[in-house]
């Protein structure tokens, strides 16, 4: 038993050990995405259905390219936190830790690949 009072041990950290940081990130991401996502859905819907040349021309324009890059980054980091939270809730021990890392790896790879593809399309 550590010689700390309950209050000292808990102060500023909460059960996750990182305080309200995760919750705050989710709130900021949510508000950002509530604004971004309606635009993205219709922009992506416009892009889908063209030939490859039309798709390349479409993402060479600044608005679709910047909106897609921003939405991909903010949305996938948001889904990552969300999926990792589900892992924390339902999967424990070593499996949980590895699955937590796997979700993070998938999310970061998807972000990197998406940004790379957009740069290739736009330039």
């Amino acid at each position: 038993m550590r010689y700390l009072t309950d209050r000292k041990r808990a102060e500023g950290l909460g059960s996750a050990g990182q305080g309200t940081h995760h919750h705050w990130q989710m709130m900021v991401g949510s508000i950002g995405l509530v604004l971004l996502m309606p635009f993205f859905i219709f922009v992506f819907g416009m892009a889908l259905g063209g030939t490859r040349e039309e798709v390349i021309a479409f993402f060479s324009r600044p608005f679709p390219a910047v909106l897609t890059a921003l939405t991909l980054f903010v949305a996938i980091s948001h889904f990552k936190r969300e999926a990792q939270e589900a892992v924390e809730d339902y999967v424990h021990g070593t499996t949980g830790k590895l699955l937590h890392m796997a979700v993070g790896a998938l999310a970061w790879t998807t972000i990197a690949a998406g940004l790379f593809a957009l740069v290739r399309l736009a330039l």
Partner: protein
Amino acid sequence: MPDVNRGNRPLSPFMLGQYYRFQMTSLSSIMVRITGIVSLGTAVLVVLWLLTAAASDEAFAVMDGLLRSVFGDIILLLATWAIWYHVFGRLRHVIWDFGWCLDVQTSEMMGLLMFIGATVMTILTAIAV
């Protein structure tokens, strides 16, 4: 006193269906989690499509063909519903976080509106694009 029963407590008990009946609040909440995880999958599909468009004609033909087939249409329609539902669900979380609309009746009403709103917006999206 501080270390009583540490590590032997139930963790996030999942009681829905077994001991607890479904209600609009619990159903709409669990759907937010499911649609969030589904949307991570949708993001992977979108990025694969962008990658193949950046890569080559042959690769693009495969991925574009998949997304524009009947099967792809169904997947994208469900994915669109999921993302709209999730947008409304997160909006509800933001509203709650401001301390508004926390009573049960309003929460249930917002849950119902999330299902209706997602369905209406999915139909509008399908018509518009």
